[in-house]
C-alpha cells in the first residue's frame, strides 16, 4: 500500500542511515582506498594500483587459509544442518518438555564467543579438562595444542556444540508451522515416516533451512573469536582461518595494503557463496527455472 498523506516517518530512518554510513560505508571506502596504496606512515603513501591484489592472490599462506576455511565451513554445514534437523524432529511437540528443551538448547547461544573458547580450552586440556582427561584415559593421545587433527576435532566440536542449537530452533519453528492436516493426510495415504519427512517436513522447512544454511555459512566463514582463543590458529597454521590470517596480516605485521585487498576479496567470496546457496535452495525441489 503506498502511503501518501504523511511522510514524516522517513525522518526516523535518518539516524540509521547515518550510523550505517559511518560504520559501514565510510570504512569500506577506506579499505578500498588502502587496497590500492602503499602506506609507509602518516601522510606517506604511494598509489600502487592492483599490486596488492596480485600479491595477495598468489600468497601461499592465503591459499592454505582459504582451504582451511572451505573445509571448515563445509564440515559445519554437513554436520550442523542434518544434526539440527534430526534434533528438531526428535524434540517433544508441546508441554513443559518442549519448553525445557528449548531453554537448554538456547544456552550455548547466550554465552559470549570468547568465553566459549575459554570453556573449551579448559574442557579439552589433557591434564585437567573433563574431555581431555577422559580421552587420554582411554589410551588415546589427545592434545589440541600439539596435533593438528586434535585441534580440528576440538574446533569442530566446539563449533557444533555452539551453533547447532540455532539450526534446531529454526528447524523446530519450521516443523511446528506445518498444519496438522498434512500429517493426517500422510497417515491416511499410508506414508512411512521417511516419506513423511521427505515429502512433507523437508519441503515445508525449505524456507527456514535456507536461512539456517545462509547464517551458518556466513558465520562459520567469518569465524574468529573461538578458534583464536582456543588454538590461536595453530598448531602451525592448521586452524588458521581467513579471518585469523587477516588479523595477523593487518595487526600483527601491519601490512595494511595487502590486508585491505584481502578483505575485499574475502567480502566478495562471502557474497558470492551466500548468493549461490540462496539460489540453490530457492530452486531445490521446486523444478522451477528462474
Amino acid at each position, binding site marked *: 500500500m503506498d502511503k501518501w498523506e504523511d511522510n514524516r516517518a522517513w525522518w526516523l530512518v535518518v539516524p540509521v542511515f547515518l550510523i550505517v554510513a559511518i560504520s559501514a560505508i565510510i570504512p569500506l571506502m577506506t579499505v578500498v582506498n588502502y587496497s590500492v596504496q602503499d602506506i609507509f606512515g602518516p601522510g606517506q603513501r604511494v598509489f600502487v594500483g592492483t599490486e596488492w591484489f596480485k600479491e595477495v592472490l598468489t600468497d601461499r599462506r592465503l591459499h592454505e587459509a582459504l582451504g582451511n576455511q572451505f573445509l571448515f565451513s563445509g564440515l559445519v554445514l554437513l554436520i550442523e544442518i542434518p544434526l539440527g534437523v534430526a534434533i528438531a524432529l526428535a524434540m517433544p511437540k508441546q508441554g513443559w518438555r518442549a519448553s525445557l528443551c528449548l531453554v537448554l538448547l538456547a544456552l550455548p547461544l547466550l554465552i559470549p564467543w570468547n568465553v566459549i573458547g575459554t570453556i573449551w580450552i579448559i574442557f579439552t586440556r589433557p591434564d585437567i579438562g573433563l574431555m581431555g582427561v577422559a580421552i587420554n584415559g582411554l589410551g588415546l593421545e589427545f592434545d589440541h595444542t600439539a596435533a593438528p587433527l586434535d585441534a580440528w576435532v576440538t574446533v569442530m566440536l566446539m563449533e557444533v556444540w555452539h551453533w547447532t542449537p540455532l539450526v534446531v530452533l529454526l528447524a523446530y519453528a519450521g516443523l511446528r508451522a506445518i*498444519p496438522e*492436516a498434512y500429517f*493426517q493426510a500422510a*497417515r491416511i495415504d499410508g*506414508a512411512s515416516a521417511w516419506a513423511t519427512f521427505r*515429502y512433507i517436513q523437508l*519441503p*515445508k522447512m525449505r524456507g527456514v533451512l535456507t536461512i539456517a544454511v545462509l547464517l551458518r555459512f556466513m558465520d562459520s566463514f567469518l569465524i574468529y573469536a573461538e578458534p583464536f582463543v582456543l588454538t590461536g590458529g595453530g598448531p602451525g597454521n592448521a586452524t588458521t582461518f581467513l579471518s585469523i590470517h587477516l588479523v595477523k596480516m593487518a595487526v600483527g605485521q601491519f601490512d595494511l595494503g595487502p590486508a585491505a585487498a584481502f578483505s575485499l576479496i574475502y567480502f566478495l567470496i562471502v557474497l558470492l557463496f551466500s548468493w549461490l546457496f540462496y539460489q540453490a535452495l530457492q530452486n531445490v525441489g521446486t523444478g522451477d527455472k528462474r
Partner: protein
Amino acid sequence: MAEIELKQIAHSYLKTPVRDEDWALKELDQVWIDGGAYALLGPSGCGKTTLLNVMSGLVIPTRGRVSFDGEDVTERKTEARNIAQVFQFPVIYDTMSVFDNLAFPLRNRKADENTVRERVHEVAEMLELEGELKTRARRLTADAKQKISLGRGLVRSDVAAILFDEPLTVIDPQAKWLLRRKLKEIHERFKLTLIYVTHDQAEALTFADQVVVMNEGQVLQVGTPQELFESPAHRFIGYFIGSPGMNFLPCEASEDGVRIAGQTVSLPESILEKIVAKEQKLELGVRPEFVRPASGTDRGSLETTIRAVDDLGNYKIVTCMLEGLEIKMKLPEDWALPEVKCRVNFNPRMIRVYADGRLIG
C-alpha cells in the same frame, strides 16, 4: 466400501469430564450405509469434526465402539482403517507432480507400477486432471488441489469411505458448483460412501442424500434435505435450515386446534391426538414459504398487522405482527398485499407442532 456403525459413541477432550458441556460428543448411535452420500451439518463447535475424526481414527472416542462392516476398529489407527479424507485446506505434496501425488497412496502400499499408472490415469480422467499430470502440484489453483486430495482417496480400491471436512472453504464461488457437481457425479458413478462435514446448509443439502444435523454434541435429526425442510425434528433445525428460518409461535391446545394469541388455528386430528401432556411448552411451527395472505372468506386465518415488506427482487419477505409475535412470510415478488391489516393463512399440510422444542406432529 463398507457400512460404518457407531455404537454409543461419546467423546470428551478432557481427562475427567464432569459436566454436560465437557462432552464434545454426547452419546450417539449412527449407521452409515454402504454407498450413501451423507452430510454432517451444524454450526461451528457442534461436534461434527470430532465425529468425523472418530470415524477416521484421528480421535479415539472416550466411550463407544466404531465398526466397519461389523468389524470393530475403535482402537485401530487411521492408516489401518482404509479411510480417505479431504481437508479444509488443500493438502498436497508440494514437490511432487500431480501424477506422483495421485500415485502416492498406491506406491506406499507397494502396488505395482502398471496398476498405479492405470488407476492414476483413470482417476485423472474423471477429475479432469489429465492435462496437468506432469505439472508440479503446488502450481495449481485451489480447486485443482482439492481435486488432487480427493483423487488420492479415489485411486485406492480399498477405501471404506471418503470423508470431507469443509472442502470448499477456499474455493472461488464460481468454481464451487463445478466441484459440487463433480462430487455428485463421482458418487453416482462409484457408489462410494461419502461423508461431508460443513456448517453451510447449501453445501450439505446439495451434496447429500441423507443429512445429519448436529448441535451441541448431539445428533438432532437424520433425514433427506426435503424432510429437514418440511418437517424439522427440532426447533433448532427449523431455525438453522432455510432463510429466513421457520416461524415458531407459542400456543395452547384447544378443542379443534391450537390458540395463538387468542386466535384459533385448526389442526388435523392426527396432530391433535399427539398433544397430550398439558405442562409441555407448545409451539406451532410454519415456514415463511407456507404462510400466505388469506382471501377474505378463509376460515381459520389469523388477523395480523404488516410491519415490514422487504423486496428482495426474486421474492419478498413480509413481516407481520400478531400481538407481539412475529410471523414472516415469503411471497413471490409480484404478489399484491393489503396496506396494514392482513389476514394470513398457514398451509395446513405444512403446519408442525413442537413440544419443548421437539416435533410431535
